[in-house]
């Protein structure tokens, strides 16, 4: 489902502060996998996640999502793939402050042709599934950390994506909330969604249902472990 072929990503190419974030990375993730990019800070996990998620382009190599090479797509098509295929959960949640839970969740679908009433209905269903409906009119900054994360998850799910990408999702959560988050991801995997998490938290990559661990260091893949 997702394949990278010799992917390299430079930042600030040919400048004094040039940085190779990812170097010659190749791997494959199948539909329904629960995959983890494991590694310390600066190992290239987030960059890899953004390359897969069509948020940036590789300097060289190919990223294939489904049967489509997304590494050289024009911006408009990359956005389309991003919107229709992926749901993102960011480390800092990246919710928009001053906006209600409901509107934050609706954000990915605002620039679509869906009617406002239908949009609201769909959002409320998603929030209900995450037990967040009672908070729908709250401003996001008034929520607890766990609630903010559930809002971020709802936003990631609103477009019914096939692939969920999460960057260090448990970094700001206590053990209880981390477990809660992981069980939600597990449920999504059971619904045949592909889960990809970048983390250095053992609580995540040691879970028995994580079936693919890609270990990163210094921008390179050190080891790929596939269970089952």
């Amino acid at each position, binding site marked *: 489902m997702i394949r990278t072929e010799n992917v390299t990503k430079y930042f600030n190419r040919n400048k004094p502060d040039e940085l190779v974030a990812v170097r010659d990375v190749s791997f494959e993730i199948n539909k329904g996998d629960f995959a983890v990019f494991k590694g310390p800070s600066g190992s290239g996990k987030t960059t890899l996640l953004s390359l897969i998620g069509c948020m940036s382009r590789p300097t060289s190599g190919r990223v294939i999502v489904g049967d489509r090479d997304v590494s050289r797509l024009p911006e408009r098509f990359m956005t389309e793939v991003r919107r229709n295929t992926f749901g993102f959960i960011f480390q800092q949640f990246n919710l928009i402050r001053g906006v209600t839970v409901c509107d934050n969740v609706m954000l990915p679908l605002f620039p679509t042709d869906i009617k406002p009433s239908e949009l609201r209905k769909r959002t409320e269903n998603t929030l209900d599934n995450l037990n967040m409906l009672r908070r729908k009119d709250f401003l996001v900054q008034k929520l607890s950390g766990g609630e903010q994360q559930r809002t971020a998850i709802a936003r990631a799910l609103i*477009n019914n994506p096939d692939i969920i990408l999460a960057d260090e999702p448990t970094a700001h959560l206590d053990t209880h909330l981390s477990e809660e988050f992981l069980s939600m991801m597990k449920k999504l995997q059971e619904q045949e969604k592909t889960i990809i998490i970048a983390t250095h938290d053992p609580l995540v990559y040691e879970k028995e249902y994580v079936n693919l661990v890609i270990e990163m260091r210094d921008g390179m893949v050190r080891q790929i472990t596939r269970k089952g």
Partner: protein
Amino acid sequence: MSINRHFNILDYTLQSLLRRKFKNIGIIIVFTFVIFITGSVLLLSYSFKKEAMLMLKNSPELIIQKTMAGRHELIPVGISSEIMKIPGVSKVEPRYWGYYYDSLIKANYTILASGESLSANNRLLKGRLPGINENNTAAIGRGVSEARFLNTDSSISMQTAGGRPMDFWITGIFEADSELLTSDLIVISRADFMKLFGIPEQMATDLAVTVSNETETVVIAKKILSQFPDTRPILRSEIIRTYDAVFGWRSGLILTLFSGALIAFIILAWDKATGLSAEEKQEIGILKAIGWETSDVLEMKFWEGLVISLTSFLIGIILAYIHIFFFGASIFAPALKGWSVIYPNFKLAPYIDFYQISILMSLTIVPYIASTIIPSWKASITEPDIVMRG
């Protein structure tokens, strides 16, 4: 493409504006103030010009003044019969007018002798005009009436050129609608006029020449000038041009005085054009990351700029309209109105030059929207990954 997409983006834009309400209210206040000032100047000067044009519409095509050493002199009435002989001239009428300084209220009055040319003003009068031969009577403007607390059953005293007092019983007061013309006006009989200013018989201030065919006015003026080289023919079109230049100059003066506000607005627009706050950049990054296209972000910023600038523009123009046409341009009318110390307290007819308004609109709304869109465009064409990393 369905309208829903635009509606959804507009909906989100309005929420975004409310989120930063203090900042946006600040921008709206500055923007509105700039539009209010500029709009007031434009509306006022245009209405003045328009009023002046209408006023001059009934004035003679040609006025003949005598000059001496380059200065305006009294003109002998006797030359009227010579001018009448010029083909194309249908009527020559002497005019008697001058200025009187009232040291009591430190103001100048415009004194006019009652005559045929004033008959059109009768409808503007409460009471009546003094008769041509009715001595020691006067009709006064509202400005004079208010400054000297005078009414139709009272009298006004002036001093003749010889220093003797002269009383005038008031027969009428010009009404408010005509104040631009009549605020500082006093109309008296011709005989009283001559006596008050010590003007010799057979002399007049100037001559009003009526021409049968308006297109021949310039030719007739040239003939008069060649026959009477010490005269100065003044064409109505020249007066109109002068009015235009004077009000144009005065508008420019006002705008210069308020250039501080304009500069503040330009700085504001420049500040917006040169960068986005970290929070705004991050928001664009988030929107891009979750599936907004660059065009969606730009549409949002377009709505944002349009809502702020259009709201400010409409409020500014409405306030300017109220200021000019309901409150008589109380803020800066003294700089734009007449020369007299008795400023007319009149209501202008609401003339609007839509061309000027649309120019003002395009010079304020378009740059503001551009200053909103350009930095957002810079941020939104960057990979969302980079934007989000800061």
